[in-house]
């Protein structure tokens, strides 16, 4: 697929922008702070309805404006679709497809598919587990948009359960039982006045959505493992092989559970991705940590605390890999995502935001060779020299918020 047209209203630094695009390579060139990333960020937002740079939507709306609008024409198998998104921070977004409203904006996720490489990607290798969870979950949603709902439900259960645990923890500390005097025998016997009487209900829901998310992540990691290894080897042929292991907070039945990490990789059981088994194990695990949870007021097991372990040979990448190796790993993760999405059908749009400047000449060349055949590649760079010769194509100059085609 490719984007044939992009137009912005009050998005980031742009009051308006309007540009026609073509398949093949297009570079946006201009000094820093001129609005190059803002352009490609808009496309990434249409694809995922989240930004690769910020967690909330408010910064996406031009300072002083109430809402931002991103419109783009997506061409897939010669069919054109006009996707329009109105970004309303703090409220529900609105979306239209070919000028008809879509009842839930979230259902517009996936109409455009992108894989975005950015300087921030290094955090997937060097940063917290949350960066790697986000990588997995975003890819899950891109492949199966339904998972946006599963993840939202899971997050909501976590919030509800957290609120309940905190109330219970407070009641404990305050020495109150949190329980009202009851006359109704049945009601009181069921412990209805106790804040904990509903905890089991939230446990059940946490386990249900958690197992769904976990099963999908485990399956995804299996699919990614050979692709990441291959991409990494292509980018850094002399380095030790790259490996992925899903590190769950579930106490494992895995053979290497005793590696002293305290948590086992859930990637090895008999049938690790069996949802009903995972659901049962999550519930058991919750029961085991209950008293610790009541002490701390947070949910201690579940996919929200898991990690994707990245290894180079026998060593973890985090803390051990060189800067260059870390970059290769980050690129390999994105390239693997690209491979998977492409195998699902429909070549996603590749976006390379300011990444070539970060790479040495050998990695630059290899990356350029790998991405060159893609249906559409959009590149941002501060100077023309940062665009590898293998990726010569159309060029726009971006200066002070004006975007003009020069080639």
């Amino acid at each position, binding site marked *: 697929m490719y984007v044939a047209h992009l137009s912005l209203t009050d998005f980031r630094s742009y009051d308006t922008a309007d540009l026609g695009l073509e398949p093949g390579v297009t570079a946006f060139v201009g000094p820093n702070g001129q609005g190059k990333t803002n352009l490609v960020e808009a496309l990434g937002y249409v694809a995922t309805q989240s930004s690769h740079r910020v967690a909330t939507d408010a910064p996406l709306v031009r300072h002083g404006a109430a809402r931002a609008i991103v419109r783009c024409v997506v061409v897939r198998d010669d069919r054109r679709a006009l996707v329009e998104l109105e970004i309303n921070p703090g409220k529900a977004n609105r979306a239209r497809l070919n000028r008809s409203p879509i009842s839930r904006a979230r259902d517009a996720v996936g109409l455009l598919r992108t894989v975005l490489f950015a300087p921030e990607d290094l955090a997937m290798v060097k940063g917290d587990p949350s960066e790697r969870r986000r990588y997995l979950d975003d890819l899950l949603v891109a492949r199966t948009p339904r998972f946006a*709902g599963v993840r939202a*439900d899971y997050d*909501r*259960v976590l*919030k*509800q*359960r957290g*609120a*309940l645990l905190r*109330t219970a923890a407070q009641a404990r500390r305050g020495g109150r039982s949190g329980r*009202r005097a009851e006359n*109704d025998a*049945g*009601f009181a016997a*069921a412990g*209805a*006045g106790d*804040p904990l*009487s*509903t905890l*089991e*209900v*939230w446990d*059940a*829901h946490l386990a249900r959505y958690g197992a769904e998310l976990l099963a999908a992540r485990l399956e995804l990691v299996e699919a990614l493992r050979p692709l990441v290894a291959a991409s990494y080897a292509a980018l850094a042929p002399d380095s030790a092989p790259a490996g992925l292991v899903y590190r769950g907070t579930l106490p494992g039945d895995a053979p290497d559970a005793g590696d002293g990490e305290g948590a086992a990789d859930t990637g090895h059981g008999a049938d690790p991705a069996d949802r009903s088994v995972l659901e049962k194990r999550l519930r058991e695990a919750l029961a085991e940590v209950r008293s610790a949870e009541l002490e701390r007021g947070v949910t201690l097991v579940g996919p929200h605390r898991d990690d994707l372990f990245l290894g180079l040979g026998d060593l973890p990448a985090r803390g051990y890999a060189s800067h260059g190796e870390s970059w290769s790993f980050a690129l390999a993760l994105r390239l693997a995502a690209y491979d998977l999405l492409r195998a699902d059908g429909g070549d996603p749009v590749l976006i390379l935001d300011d990444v070539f400047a970060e790479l040495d000449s050998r990695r630059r060349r290899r990356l350029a060779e790998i991405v060159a055949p893609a249906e559409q590649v959009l590149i941002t760079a501060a100077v023309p020299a940062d665009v590898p010769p293998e990726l010569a194509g159309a060029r726009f100059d971006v200066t002070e918020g004006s975007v003009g085609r020069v080639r």
Partner: protein
Amino acid sequence: MYEGVLQNLIDELGMLPGVGPKSAQRIAFHLLAAEPADVKRLAHALLEVKDKVRFCRVCGNVAAEEECRICRDTRRDTHVICVVEESKDVVAIEKTREFRGRYHVLGGAISPIDGVGPDDLRIRELMTRLADGRVTELIIATDPNLEGEATATYLARLVKPMGLKVTRLASGLPVGGDLEYADEVTLGRAFEGRRLLDV
């Protein structure tokens, strides 16, 4: 901004659910242009509703008397109770004409974030209604969102020892939504296809 009294009215209207500033202004100017008798009737209706409408002492539905129209209707099946979150859900279900039993209005759903637990809902009253063993089926028609599901699970567990049949509306309702927004056909189908809640 308009002159004091007019702006007051716009502000008051703007506080109503689903009424934004623009609609509030439109309604205010409509009232300004309307016949005095029409406006008086509206004002009277507003005051009367606060004065006369109360909540049914049996099921918690809105009622003009001690008990609501449905609880007083002797033709309704007393063996089935349909549990809903709000009175407006009763209206939505009545429209489907699928259900001939009685209701129980909880007054919301369990939501720790909002500080709503079982104690804050009319669950104790429901248990009292179930105590004599006359009711044989409980249909839980809370909203098809997370809080509605949690409330359903909680209730199903609570009444489990009583050995009655507990059912939940069939899926097919727009997930994450409100019962009241489901169209009659969908809601009617969800009623017909209700499934046993196994907890």
